Structure formats: C-alpha cells, structure tokens
C-alpha cells in the first residue's frame, strides 16, 4: 500500500479537502491532514481492511518556531498486518496566548496509546486536545507554569517560592 493508494482511500471517503498537502521530499513521506478531521481519518485508517494502521508508534507535538507561530502534531502510524508505516501531520497557527492554546481533536478514542502521548504534548508544548478524557500534565507538576518545550519558553526562576539555580 503506497501513499497514493492511501490518499485515494481518504479522498473517496472524506472528499478532496481532507488532505491539505503532502511532503514527499524526505525519506519518509507525510500527509498533511485537515486538523478538524484527524480523528475520523485515523479511525478510517485503523479499520479499513486495506490499510489496518492499528498501531500508533509515536505522537509528537511540535512548536514550529516563534517566527511562524505554528503548532502541529505529528502522528506515526504502523500497520502490524501489512508491516507498513505512515506519517500524518496536522498544524495550525496560534498567537501564543496562554489563554488560547492551539487545539486539535483527540485521537485517544481511536488509539489508547495516544492518551498519554497527548497528555505529554499538552504538558510540554501546550497543545490542547478536544475530547481527551483526562488531559492533565504528565511529566511536570500540576501547578507548573508555562510549557517547557515551546520555543519562546523562559526558564522559571522560582518554583513555589524556591529559587531554581
């Protein structure tokens, strides 16, 4: 199953607008998906007998830099029956206001492994996942301020009144 066939399956099911672009230059081609449809796309790719991407290898939240103000999530899917891999990407612009985090649909109902990965992306990049059952911080303490892996993150000077050296 190559990228063209996967694309045609998705276009047939969801229409042209679901794929907003693709990257074919690197070693691993990637499909850019419409952010609002990512959960449906994952469900279709998981359950379609032609693709069976049943294993979510990795989910990474990405801050694409201060100049672009773009946030994204990268999904690495793997198919155990077909032994294939696929990369999906979604991204959105955001003004870095901490009251208005970039928000994507959660895929934790499709892959349970996304549950903790999405919590990590929320914790580290401040990406909100709509419909996540338990979106708390996972690695940092619950009362930590800011999102450490954002490119504009300033190191905290104090934590609970204790100076951090």
């Amino acid at each position: 199953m190559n990228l063209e066939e996967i694309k045609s399956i998705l276009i047939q099911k969801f229409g042209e607008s679901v794929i907003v672009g693709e990257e074919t230059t690197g070693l691993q081609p990637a499909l850019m998906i419409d952010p609002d449809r990512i959960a449906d796309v994952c469900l279709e790719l998981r359950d379609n007998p032609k693709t069976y991407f049943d294993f979510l290898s990795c989910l990474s939240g990405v801050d694409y830099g201060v100049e672009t103000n773009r946030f994204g999530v990268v999904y690495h899917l793997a198919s155990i029956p077909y032994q294939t891999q696929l990369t999906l990407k979604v991204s959105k612009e955001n003004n870095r206001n901490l009251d208005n985090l970039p928000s994507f649909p959660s895929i934790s109902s499709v892959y349970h492994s996304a549950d903790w990965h999405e919590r990590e992306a929320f914790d580290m990049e401040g990406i909100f996942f709509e419909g996540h059952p338990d979106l708390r911080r996972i690695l940092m303490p619950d009362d930590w301020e800011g999102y450490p892996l954002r490119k504009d993150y300033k190191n905290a000077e104090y934590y609970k009144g204790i100076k951090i050296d």
Partner: protein
Amino acid sequence: MNITNSKYEEALERYNKKILDASAQEMVLNMGPQHPSTHGVLRLELITDGEIVKEVIPHMGYLHRCFEKHAESLTYQQTIPFTDRMDYLASMNNSHIWTMGVERMMGIDKDIPKRIEYIRVLVCELNRIASHLIAIGTYGIDIGAFTPFLWCFRDREHIMGMLEWASGSRMLYNYIWVGGLFYDLPVGFEERCREFVDYFKPKLIELNELLTNNQIFISRTANVGVLPMDVAINYGCSGPMLRGSGLKWDLRRIDGYSVYPELEFDVPIGNGEMGTIGDCWDRYKVRVDEIAQSLRIVEQCLDRLQKELKRTPDFDPRAKMPRKITPKVQDFYIRGEGAKGELGFYFIHNDARSEIPFRVKSRGPSFCNLSVLPAIAKGVMIADLIAIIGSIDFVLGEVDR
C-alpha cells in the same frame, strides 16, 4: 502569569474531585514514589475497596530530566550520553538506535564497516541480556523469591565487567558514536565473551529450574494480569509485553536493521503454557527465552568477529565518522527494538548548516507499556498488582526521560 481559561484546568479539577469523593468504603492508597516494587520513583495512587484495586492512577515525572529540551541545544553527537540515561539498564540499545537514525538522515548508514556493525549488535545483545536479567531477578523479589535476584545479579556482573572493559563505564557507556565507535573492542574481548557464553548457558538452565517451573511462582503469575493481544496493540505496547500476548512482532526482524537479517534467531512469543495467553508468566517466559536467543546472536557475532571480520592493526573505528553532522532538512522517525520494546526517535532538522536538531521526540517503550497498567489492573488484588507491575518491566528513566 494567570491563566483564566478554565478549560485547561478542568481535568485536574475532575481528578481532585475523584480523590476527594472516594467513599467511606474506599481507601486512597499511595504506592510509591519510594516503594520497592515500583522499581524507581513511580507513584501509583490506588483507590481500593478492601483488598480489591478499583482504580490505579499513575503519577510520573519524578525522574524527568528534560531529555528533549537538552537535545534541542546539543549536537547529535553530544546527545548520545543523554540517550544512555533514558533506559539506563540497556544504554547500548538506546545509543544504537539514536546513531542509526542520524546515520540514515545523513545517508551514511550503508558505509559503516561490517566489523563496526557486528560489534554494535554484540554489545547491544549483551546489554539486552543484562536488562532482562534485572527484569527477571527483580520480578522474583517482587513475588517473594530472593535467590534468583542474587543469581541474576551475579551473572549480570560479568556483562557489566565486559562492557566496562570495552567502554570504560559500567552502565552509561557512550560507546556507539555516529559513524563509528568510541574504540575497537579491547584485545581478548572476544575470547572473554565466549567464556562468558559457555559459563552462562548452564546457569540459564539452573535459573529455569529455580524460578520458571516453581509452583509458588506459577501460582502467583499464571492467569494474573492477562493482557489480550488487541488491547496490547491499541495501547501501543511493544517488546516482550506484546510478544507475551502472542504476537510475533520484533522490529529486529520486521525492519531488519543493522546486521540482524544476517543473524539467525527466533522470536519467542507467549503461548499460555501455564494459564492464559498474555498473563504475567508468559511475559516473564518471553524474557527468559529472549536471553537464550540473544546468546545465540552473541555467539554468531563472535564467530564472525573472530574469523572473517577479524581485527587488523590498521582498523580505525572512527574512520567513517563525519567531521560535522549536518543532515539535510527533513523529518525522520527511526524505530528499533530496545530491551523493553519499540524505541523511537523523531527528529526534525530544519537548518542544513546546523548540527543541532530543531526538535527531538523520544518514544520510550516503557512509557507506552506502563500506560496499559490502569486498564489491566482494574479489579485485581493489591498483591497481584505487584506481580503485574513487575511483569511490565519498565524503567522510570525512560518513562520520564
């Protein structure tokens, strides 16, 4: 900085309320962060009804050392010691997969001399044996058997000694570098390693007699913590967890990276010999069988390293090392079979002149394997929970990174 959007605090409030609302019959019990059976600094919050665990809420992050943040400010070569500190029981595997990813991004993975690849596989498999020995030994202790722990650590000590001889360090080696190795194997390493294999094979049989077929051990682990295959896949479990559930899925075979396609080994899977497929005993047995297979790989590596890939005086393991590690602009996800399962690194490199990645995400197998715990530990006894935790075999250094 005050956040006014209550949407982002909602989950935390829900969790706090759940703990507060635990009824009079229930008890909230903290297991850890310092508990012998959590194998590190993991805190499990149990909501219990008598002896029955109604819910497990894991809290991680006590060992968070900002691996991904560090990797964004260090070059690819400088990050290798940090990868060692992720799964510190199998450091070689981590740095092997990291360097493999960087080499593929640079397109030099085909130029690495065979001798270097075989040395890499040799030390990785030795390290895998050491990691599985710890898993088995500490699992015995969790269940109440003290002797296997001492036996496993005695045998692991030989491996630690050999790897220290090769790299200069007992646990955190920094031995595998991008494009080569820190040094060639020391003179006499192959012979010493073969001695170890001959010594260790009968010890493995002894270990099997002591623990694998021990009736008390079987009663504690068989039919406990059953993880069905579909649940394991959906939760992203990999490595011995997934193979224990009966799926033949080993990235050394699937992806066939490094020189694994040239080596002969089997992929052991759980078959429900003592109870149900995917129970704690199956996961334990998969690890024992994997040690035997790793020994086979070690022997084959030694054969080649002593014959056709013999050391020569002019062999330089750093000859192929690039002066500057500057890959092309690209995204790359590399995965490989660590000791605990699928270890992955996702690199984003966006500046062709830079030696520093823009973003690195590490996918620790222990992280995903641990995430299945709340699902399989619902409604078990507290004592069985200990057995389940031990059979997952996570390393907190990799969960928290």
